[in-house]
């Protein structure tokens, strides 16, 4: 450390099984980047982990204010990890507003690392502090480390040639360096990243590298931290790993689906939080022959996907709740014309514009029922960031096999959350079988496969198969317009039956825990990690509780009814006011109980342990 080298103090290394760290600061402080880089280093160090970014809806709320606080939480462990952690053990705070909004989450007696340089009068005022919390004794119950990160970064970069603003922006790297040191992580992965990111800006690159190294050195030399921590490698399945967010996994699942089906892919999309990253990612891969189309609106995005599907292309659209609401009429057209389109809803807090950057599971009924008429659409859900890959493949497979639009539900929590992923062996992925009809003999547009009830997929350009389809009711065989009463009744039932038959593709439901007992917890979507961990903890306490997590929501797994009957109570935790629970109650006449939370935040393990515990 150039500023004031201190004699290296003897450090003790404490081994701990798991830790949850939250980085919080102003949205201009680069906390997301700090978190992602800490994650990268942690993953490479061999821990299992989960992350949860939490940022404001505004691009940049006024600096230093409470709404402008942006956070990133990481939970890593030598044991398998399924959630980003309930409460941080360590809180890294870059300004007073961040302290004000996050201190209540820190575990009792937790570690607090504070950038004292930001605790100046104006910032204290913006955060609503009358007295500086660093001096009034209010932090006495925490292990507080005060570091003037602002000043130390300035000192480290005083000869860098960077201006004050650029220096200010590098202080997150100082904080990161300090934390990397504290947990014995290497700086190299971040250095590599910086080199890539700032390849054309050598000054900024040098400044960031220097700040990172200065932070690391500061940790080592300052007597501030008496101890460093070691979290041993997790015992995880051997193989090649990478970190992945849900949105990345979804985008790659889409590309994989085109590869496995052997046909071109098309995405029609319109920018919307928190789904836009899928559009961004796919737009980078044009060499796949993949066309990504940013349409003029949500409706056009869905319609363009339908047009592409009509042309014989593997078509997708990505959006979030409000966008899905706009697409619903067109989704009705896709199901009426029986064309395969995968509709991905990265759910966010609703209704209306709601909470764009926060997570929720309140679009399940919208997906299943949200269209005019009897309009069945299969619905599946992903349960974790990496699971989005498999779920996307499943959605595409069902869409082309049954010639139907398919909903895939993810959510803001798993879309932006990150976890290590055992990269699948590409050769072991099951092909997606696509058959285009070319035989003009005895062709009828709505003739069906006897097993799946799917009609033939016909590419325009195929001689002798010219035909017309549309949103008007179809004749059950020819696909021509029919207003016949009996035919309509038949078609409504046929469309329902076709979707119901997807049940034949659903594998037996996996039970976590014993196959019978007092309580069965039934979950779906991004709550998997919290439910799984809570049920494990309750079982460790001797409770007769098990859980299942549903991939298929419409139709439901065929064995679910009998499974639920083997338990005294069925409990359904959801981040809504009880949507799956309604389906289970109405479909299976089971007196299922609901656990709800609608705060724009995921379940904490502890709250599930206590609330499920009430039923055991």
């Amino acid at each position: 450390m150039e500023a004031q080298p201190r004699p290296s103090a003897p450090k003790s290394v404490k081994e701990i099984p798991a830790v949850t760290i939250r980085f919080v600061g102003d949205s201009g402080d680069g906390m997301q980047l700090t978190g992602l880089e800490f994650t990268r280093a942690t993953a490479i160090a061999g821990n299992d982990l989960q992350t949860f970014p939490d940022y404001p809806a505004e691009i940049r709320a006024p600096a230093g204010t409470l709404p402008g606080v942006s956070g990133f939480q990481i939970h890593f462990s030598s044991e398998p990890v399924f959630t980003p952690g309930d409460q941080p053990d360590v809180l890294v705070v870059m300004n007073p507003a961040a302290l004000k909004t996050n201190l209540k989450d820190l575990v009792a007696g937790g570690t607090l690392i504070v950038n004292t340089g930001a605790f100046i009068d104006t910032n204290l005022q913006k955060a609503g502090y009358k007295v500086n919390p660093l001096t009034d004794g209010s932090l006495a119950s925490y292990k507080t480390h005060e570091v003037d990160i602002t000043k130390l970064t300035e000192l480290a970069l005083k000869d860098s040639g960077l201006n004050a603003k650029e220096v200010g922006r590098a202080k997150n790297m100082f904080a990161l360096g300090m934390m990397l040191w504290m947990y014995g992580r290497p700086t190299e992965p971040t250095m590599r990243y910086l080199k890539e990111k700032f390849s054309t800006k050598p000054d900024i690159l040098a400044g960031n590298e220097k700040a990172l190294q200065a932070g690391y050195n500061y940790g080592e030399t300052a007597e501030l931290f008496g101890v460093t921590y070691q979290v041993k490698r997790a015992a995880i399945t051997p193989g090649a790993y990478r970190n992945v967010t849900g949105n990345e996994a979804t985008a790659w699942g889409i590309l994989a689906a085109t590869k496995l089906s052997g046909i071109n892919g098309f995405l029609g999309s319109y920018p919307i939080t928190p789904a836009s990253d899928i559009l961004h990612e796919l737009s980078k891969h044009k060499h796949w022959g993949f066309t990504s189309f940013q349409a003029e609106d949500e409706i056009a995005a869905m319609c363009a996907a339908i047009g592409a599907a009509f042309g014989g292309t593997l078509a997708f659209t990505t959006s979030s709740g409000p966008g899905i609401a706009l697409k619903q009429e067109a989704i009705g057209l896709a199901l009426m014309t029986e064309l395969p389109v995968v509709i991905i809803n990265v759910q966010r807090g609703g209704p209306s514009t709601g909470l764009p950057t926060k997570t929720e599971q309140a679009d399940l009924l919208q997906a299943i029922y949200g269209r005019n008429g009897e309009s069945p659409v299969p619905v599946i859900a992903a349960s974790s960031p990496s699971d989005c890959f498999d779920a996307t493949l499943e959605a595409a497979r069902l869409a082309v096999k049954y010639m139907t639009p398919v909903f895939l539900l993810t959510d803001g929590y798993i879309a932006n959350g990150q976890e290590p992923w055992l990269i699948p062996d590409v050769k072991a992925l099951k092909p997606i079988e696509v058959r285009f009809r070319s035989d003009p003999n005895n062709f009828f547009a709505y003739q069906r496969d006897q097993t799946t009830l799917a009609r033939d997929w016909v590419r325009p350009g195929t001689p002798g198969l010219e035909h017309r389809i549309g949103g008007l009711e179809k004749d059950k065989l020819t696909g021509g317009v029919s207003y016949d009463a009996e035919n309509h009744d038949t078609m409504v039932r046929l469309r329902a039956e076709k979707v119901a038959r997807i049940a034949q593709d659903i594998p037996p439901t996996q039970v976590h825990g014993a196959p019978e007992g007092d309580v069965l917890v039934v979950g779906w979507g991004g709550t998997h990690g919290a439910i799984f961990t809570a049920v494990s903890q309750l079982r460790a306490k001797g409770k007769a509780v098990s859980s299942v997590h549903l991939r298929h929501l419409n139709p439901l797994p065929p064995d679910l009814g009998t499974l639920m009957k083997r338990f005294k109570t069925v409990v359904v935790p959801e981040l809504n006011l009880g949507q799956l629970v309604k389906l289970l109650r109405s479909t299976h006449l089971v007196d299922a109980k609901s656990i709800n939370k609608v705060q724009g935040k995921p379940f904490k393990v502890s709250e599930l342990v206590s609330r499920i515990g009430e039923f055991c």
Partner: protein
Amino acid sequence: MTTPAKLTKKDFQSDMDPRWCPGCGDYSILAQMQTVLPDLGIPRENFVFVSGIGCSSRFPYYMNTYGFHTIHGRAPAIATGLKMSRPDLSVWVVTGDGDALSIGGNHFIHMMRRNVDLKVLLFNNRIYGLTKGQYSPTSELGKMTKSTPSGSIDAPFNPLSVALGANASFVARSVDVDPKHLQATLLRAAKHKGTAFIEVLQNCNVFNDGAWEHLTEKSVKDSAQVKLEHGKPLVFAKGTKGVRLNGFTPEVVTLGQDGVTEKDLLVHDEKASPSRSMLLAELLGPHFPTPIGVFRAVERPVHHELDQAQLAAAREKKGTGDLHKLLHAGDTWTVS
């Protein structure tokens, strides 16, 4: 495969009988389309007709080609997805004044600014026919309909001005009762690269009879219309009158009067600036003859060609997509 015999009009007639009202202008448009398509040298299976909702949008059912009768206003969006993913197809959009300019206005303008290679026919009868007679976005101010018993208070759109404002590369107007002109216009549109937009003035003899008779009636036709021909002066009324520019203001002049000759007249230029085409689009009766013909035909980059070029350039640079490589790109680590 033997060389296919040349297609005929009959090849494009589907087995479904048109169900428009007797006397509807749509019959003529359908007949001209079926007459023209065999001359394009495109295999029948490569045609796709996409429509929205409304009387006009029944059109695909009567064409023995691939067809998609979609939902209200969305035909341009669906056709855009189809054309982007299947550039090999000849994709036609059939729409009406309500479908294109009201519920589908957004898709309509974006299709044109992108220059998607679609041939677009807008049947303009200035009324909602299928819903039985409400005013449309092209209905004249004061129009009395079921939904506007006191007269419409909404100023109408001029479809050509909208198209030109959206920078459409081909903009034309034709008339249902002028088969020859309509055929010629369809042919021009078919051969244009990029969005080719044709407004077809069409009569609804049930809900808005005589919508265009002020310019299509035999007795007034010659003086109420001016046929646009590229490179030729704007002459009408059997060669007796013309349109001249006085500064930026058009005016009707009589040839031979006050020494006016054809040389003084506005000469039509399909490739002129959009403002010139807009000036023509805004020529409206009763003070001016209504121009019929191709207002604008310019070349500009075509949407799917730009897309395909980007895909090809990416392949050139990065090779074809490799799933293993994709998943292993960036930071990975191995647990043994």
